[in-house]
């Protein structure tokens, strides 16, 4: 059934977009270097957007960093994966210095204990061997 003409007209005159959509379009225009024309309710928000745009300057990465990363990306896949895995493990461990210290202390203690046990056993074996040898005449 066809709609009454008056209803159609009233519908088409209603704003079809939400404030968020209109603001989004205004920001698009702002970012492309134009000053958007907006309704008074959105004007302070566009002003804030303009201030933010001027304040948040693009930041270039350092040239040395750029070159270093470029060479890592260009490295063959296998080498890159190994370097990445080693780097990842190092970074992960360095993030927890306490864990690193505890691991180091336990490892040192284990090595020390191992060396002591070996020395004692060898000493004991020598002692036994010396006891079994016939006495010098």
């Amino acid at each position, binding site marked *: 059934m066809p709609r009454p003409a008056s209803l159609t007209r009233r519908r088409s005159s209603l704003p079809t977009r939400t404030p968020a959509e209109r*603001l989004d379009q205004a920001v698009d225009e702002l970012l492309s270097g134009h000053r958007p024309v907006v309704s008074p309710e959105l004007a*302070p*928000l566009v002003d804030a957007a303009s201030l933010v745009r001027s*304040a948040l300057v693009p930041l270039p990465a350092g040239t040395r960093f750029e070159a270093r990363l470029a060479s*890592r990306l260009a490295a063959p896949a296998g080498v890159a994966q190994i370097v*990445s895995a080693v780097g990842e493990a190092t970074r992960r461990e360095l993030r927890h210095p306490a864990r690193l210290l505890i691991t180091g202390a336990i490892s040192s203690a284990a090595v020390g204990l191992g060396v002591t046990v070996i020395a004692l056993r060898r000493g004991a074996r020598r002692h036994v061997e010396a006891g079994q040898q016939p006495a010098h005449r």
Partner: protein
Amino acid sequence: MTAGRPNRAPGARRAPAGDPDLHDLHAAQADRAAFDVLYRRYLDRIYGYAFYQLGDHHDAEDATERTFLAALRALPTFHDEGATFRAWLFRIAHNTILNARRSRQRGRTEPLPADLEPPAPNADPAGLLDAAEERRRVMRAVDELPDDRRQVVLLRFVDGLSSREIGQVMDRSEGAARVLLHRALRDLATALER
């Protein structure tokens, strides 16, 4: 990419045809060395995003490096993402930065840097002071936004991503990204009015 794959898996989506990086992306997928073009194109933007999020040059470099290495590794799987290349790349950066912040076990405590550009020669000192003060004020206001709103502002204004792409980066709908931007700018307008 999907161009040469007539038998795509069900549900796998093509990268949008309007993706300006599509050509270079195909080249990089065919030859790893061609990734350099995309790397040079996006290095500063990823770095800037990381720096504004983490507030530290070393952390930003670390996050940037991880992002590009992860992107290079995952490049062959890109056709399943259904997003533009840059939205996909920023999503990797976004996750990497979240992990970096989590691993520090604290939020960003460093204020956003206010003096990033060297002053122009022969500039009016009083004008420079005013501009620096104004920038500091805006940075502070951005810094005080809730996490998701600050991210939307950074992605929109530093990196120039569309709301659709921001939605893809942050795993939200385009409408939700627009609403976040609206709320963020409303908060900023209130803060900057004071």
